[in-house]
C-alpha cells in the first residue's frame, strides 16, 4: 500500500487503544476519549475519524466513508496524519 504521510499504511485497521473508551458526551457536545483518570475532548473532525476506528475498517475505508459522508475529497493526508498522531499518543492502536 502507498504510504502518503510516510507513517501509516492505508490498509492499517486502527482501533481505540486498550483501556480507552470513546463516547459521545451531550454535556460537552463532543466525542470524548476516556482513559484512566483523564479525558480528551475531541473536536468534530477528530471525533468523526476516531469514531470510525473500530479495528475492522482500514484507513482507506475510513477516508472513503468520510469523503462520502461529508461530500469532500482529498482527505487521505489529513486522516493519515491524525491517525499517526493518535497512535503516537496511544489513543489508537493498529495490530499488525
Amino acid at each position: 500500500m502507498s504510504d502518503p504521510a510516510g507513517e501509516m499504511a492505508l490498509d492499517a485497521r486502527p482501533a481505540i487503544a486498550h483501556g480507552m473508551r470513546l463516547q459521545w458526551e451531550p454535556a460537552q457536545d463532543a466525542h470524548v476519549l476516556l482513559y484512566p483518570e483523564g479525558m480528551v475532548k475531541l473536536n468534530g473532525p477528530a471525533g468523526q475519524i476516531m469514531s470510525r476506528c473500530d479495528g475492522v475498517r482500514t484507513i482507506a475505508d475510513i477516508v472513503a466513508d468520510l469523503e462520502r459522508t461529508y461530500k469532500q475529497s482529498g482527505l487521505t493526508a489529513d486522516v493519515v496524519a491524525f491517525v499517526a498522531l493518535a497512535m503516537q499518543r496511544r489513543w489508537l492502536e493498529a495490530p499488525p
Partner: protein
Amino acid sequence: MNTSAPVGHALDAPGVAPGGTRSRSHTVGPPLWLLLELTYRCPLHCVFCYNPTDFANTGPELSTADWIRVLREARALGAVQLGLSGGEPLARDDLEEIVAEAHTLGFYINLITSGIGMTEARIKALKAAGLDHIQLSFQDSTREMNDFLSSTRTFELKAKVAELIRTHDYPMVLNVVLHRLNIDHVGEILAMAEALGAQYVELANTQYYGWAWLNREQLLPTRAQLERAEAATRAFRERVGAKMQIYFVVPDYFETRPKACMSGLGSVFLAVAPDGTALPCHAARTLPGLELPNVRGADVRAIWYDSPAFNRFRGDAWMKEPCRSCPEKVKDFGGCRCQAYLLTGDADNADPVCDLSPHHHLVTAAVARAERAAAAPAVAAPQSARAQGLTFRDHRVSIPVVIEEKRT
C-alpha cells in the same frame, strides 16, 4: 487509606496539546470528574493519608441508594470520569452494585484500591459490572512498605492481586507514595513493581495535607534524597525501556511555582465523602468557613452550581496580591487553597510554594528543617537534574481536558 489525589494518576497525559488546556471562562462547566470516597474504613493506617484527620468523627456512610442517586444526578450534569476510592472501597460490599449503575450511566470507572479484599470472585463481578480500570496503591507508609520491601506478606498479597488484575485483562497500574522514610528505596520499589508485571508506576511524593500535614516534619525528604531517587528512577528507566512507564511526582515544596490544582476549585472536580459531604477538593474540610453541602440535603446540581462552597474559589475575585495582578493566575489559579491556608493562615493567599508569595520562606524553611532533621550534608540544588529525562507529573495538575485541533 487512600494515598492518591483524585486526578491524573499513573498514565500519561497524551491529550495535552500545546495551548490546548481548558479555557476558563466565567461560565461554570460540568463537574467532569466525580470522586466517590465510598468509605473511610480501611485496614491500613497511613501516616500520609489525605483523609481528614478527624474522619472518625464524621457521620454514617451513605447507603447504596444514596450513592446511586449521586451517580445519576452527577451524570445528568455531565460528569463522566468516576473515581471510587476510600478508605478501601472494597470494604463496601455494594461496590459491584455501584459500579454496575455507574457503567449503565456511561461513566468511565476507576477503582483506587490497596487490593486488600480483592478476590477472584469480586474482580470477576466488578469486570462484569463494567469496571474500566484498577489502580493498585501502596498505602501504608511504613508497615506495608517494609513488608513489601522485605518480600513478606504484603508482597504476596500484591502479587496475588496483580495476577488477578492481569488475568482479567486490566492494565497493571501501581501507585506508590514516597516520603523521607521510603524514598531511598526507589530502586527496590521499582524492581518489585517490575516483578509484579506493572506497566505503569507512579511514584508520587506525599502532598502535605490531612495526616501528612501532621507528619510533615518526618515525611518531607531532603533534596539530596530526592535527587538520588530521581537518579535511581532514571537508571531503571534506561534499563527496562518502554515496557514500564514511570512517573515521578516531585513534592511541590521543592518547586517555585504551585500546581494548577484541579484547574481551580469548582471547575471540574467534585468529591463526595463517605458521609455525603460534597467537596470541591478532597482536602477542602481543612478550609475554614467553607460550609460544605451534603448530598443528603441537596441535589448535586444545586451543590455544584449554587452552593457558596463550590462558588467560593471560582473566577479570580477572591484572590489577593500577588496573584490578583499576576499574569500566571490563568495557569495555576494561585495554587493549592489548602496549602495556602495551612501555611499562611489565609486560604485566599497565594500558595506559598510560589516564590512570588511573601510567604515562600515558610516552604523553604520547612525544607531546611527537613535537611537538618535528616542531618544530610548540605547540598546545593542543581535544578538541572530535573531536566534530564524524567517525566514529572503531578496528580494535582489537572485532568487533561483539551480540544484536539484538527482540521480536515
